[in-house]
């Protein structure tokens, strides 16, 4: 063989792996919001709920590949290689996000936590959703609600923004008041939840 540069290649491989990981994070916004943990062994994940339900799921895998022909390899520029890596990242991110949404969808349906009538995304439907979920308050402080993140279908955010822009000042004020009223209620629920966390005989 022609003498190689294995050390340099290892470093390049490392850089490529980092780029792949970053690419997956950028293209999987939902997943990147969830705190990541490394699994060191085992082949499944389970949750033992407080009511005794035990749900076990096998680990799911995401994989993708790219190929480079010998001819391409001879003239390939670093940017072109990174573009291929990014294609893999997008593909893997898509698989992971789809899996995540599928699991979420199943859990939501199971818990019955869906908005009746499946309305379009709008400020009103957001308030309906807000009423249905648990809201956390940082430092147990009413002024610091931890507001949920909205994940929309493509174009969903733009439509929402349009509705918001069209709203009059009075409508906005009214909306804010309704939201605050819900948060007041949620804070009371939060305090009640805290009170319920205790040791009894």
């Amino acid at each position: 063989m022609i003498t190689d540069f294995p050390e340099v290649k290892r470093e390049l491989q490392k850089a490529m792996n980092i780029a792949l990981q970053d690419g997956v994070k950028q293209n999987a916004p939902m997943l990147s919001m969830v705190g990541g943990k490394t699994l060191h062994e085992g082949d499944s994940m389970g949750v033992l709920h407080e009511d005794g339900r035990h749900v076990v799921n096998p680990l799911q895998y995401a994989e993708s590949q790219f190929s480079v022909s010998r001819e391409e390899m001879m003239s390939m520029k670093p940017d072109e290689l990174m573009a291929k890596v990014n294609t893999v990242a997008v593909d893997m991110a898509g698989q992971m996000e789809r899996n995540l949404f599928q699991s979420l969808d199943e859990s939501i349906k199971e818990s019955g936590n869906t908005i009746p009538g499946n309305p379009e995304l709008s400020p009103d439907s957001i308030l309906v959703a807000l009423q249905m979920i648990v809201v956390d308050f940082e430092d147990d402080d009413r002024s610091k609600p931890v507001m949920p993140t909205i994940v929309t279908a493509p174009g969903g955010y733009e439509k929402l923004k349009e509705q918001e822009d069209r709203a009059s000042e009075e409508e906005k004020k009214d909306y804010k008041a309704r939201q605050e009223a819900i948060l007041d209620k949620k804070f009371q629920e939060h305090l009640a939840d805290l009170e319920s966390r205790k040791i009894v005989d």
Partner: protein
Amino acid sequence: MNPDNIKQPETKDPFLQRAIEHWLDSANELGYQPLFCEWLITNNYILKYSIKNTHFEQGKDVVAVSADGTPHAFQLKGGPINLKRWREEVKPEIDILIGGAIQHPDIDKSSPHISYLVTNGEIEDNVRVEIISLNEKAWKDTPLHCWTRGDLLNGFQQMAEGILPKDAVTYKKLIDLIFADGTGFPDYAKIYGFLFEILNPRDTARAKEQRKRDIAAAVLYANMIVGPYRVTKNHASTVRVMTMLLSSIFYVADKYDLEDKYWLKSYEIIWSDIQSTAILLEDEISTDGFDASFNSPLDTDLIPFRKHSAASIVYALKLAQFIKGDAAWKSVVDPAVVPKYKESILVWGEASFVPLIMLSLIFKDVPGGKVTAVSLLKSVVTQILQTNGRHVKGKGALVPPYYDIDFAVKLSFEMLEAEFDDDYKYHSYYLKSVIELLTRLNQRDFISEQWREISFMRFDELVPENPNDFLLWRTEHGENRTTLPKKENSWAEMEKEAVSLKGESLPSTLRRFPEFIPFFVTVFPFRLNSELLGYLYLASKK
């Protein structure tokens, strides 16, 4: 080693011979003593005792009885023996070896024993001439036998006969391990992987006799691997490697239901080695203190980590002694010793709580010590909640027990090769079992005060598909289980659950030898769970 009843080995593998030579030439007598004992039992001797580093050996480091019932006593030396050393150091001990009766309840004091001088060096010609002369005159009735470097080499190589690394890649692994930097930490994954290959647990058709030979070979290779650590007197790392060896042997013994005759003597040798090496570390700290080891300006930021790593082995030893009823555990309450360990525990991850938990298991039963035990456990709970609890801003930074102190040092010095972006907020591997321990100690008030925050946490653990896999460094099959605590919990139920934890799911070897568990959990901190801690609680209860 060539008594008549021992088969002579065939030298088949020059590489292995060179590797054993390298290890043997760098070892002192304490370094090769465990393997020498293992060699004796593989040749059907019954080992009676093996003493290290005491003044009570009466010239006899090792005593064993051969198959025909004859007692044999061995004085072990390291390095060459010239005339000066012979006359000043060795001969006085040989006089006692030959002249003094063996002190052991199973051996008749009046029955003569065969005496051996064993060294991994050579005996110079003029010394040999003097020994021959003494054997013909003063020692005529009980002549001295000599085993030197070549005999040990042949004997040790015999132990690996047929159980050699299978390919060049495995040879390379062995070479890397036996040439490791003995001043640092062992590469756990590589060592366990290598010993696992030697023990062949995946070969389900292996005969039990062959498993016995596998175990002897694993002891040989582990001693070679631990060579660099023994040479540098890195006792903590030596203990860690031998703990891995014993865990892997336990795994095979449990998986294949091996009767005692196939592995128990090996256990005794390795266990004795672990204890005596840990005692050497304790002695070093007692004599010189920690500070004698710190002699470079580069040490400054590493001192707390180095102290922690050493103290964790000593505290494992103390709990083992406590479980066995050995009064030596009392040094943890000795006012002359306690200050030496000041600031020796550092919080760097969940695994760093292991020494505190071990101390609490001792103190809980010491008169007046329960307050200390409870205080240590409370500090563990508080640290976990402060670092990974719901009020943490940003990520939960207390890493799970899969991450060792070496990782923690690299993380703190920003020297990790790969980006570490994990978030452990709301998660803990130890919180559940520590709360159960506090429940056993009737700490309802504290738990009630903390329950609001505790109830937001998620308790993590790995539940192996096969209970014996608990002894593995990593298992492929198992559930990464997260348990969600009840918001409102009943104290009566908590008490009931805590007392039900008796270690019933633990591998039978661990249950049989609870004194080994403190070392096991120091090296395998990710195995500390409710069952294990519950069992340790019961095993350490007075």
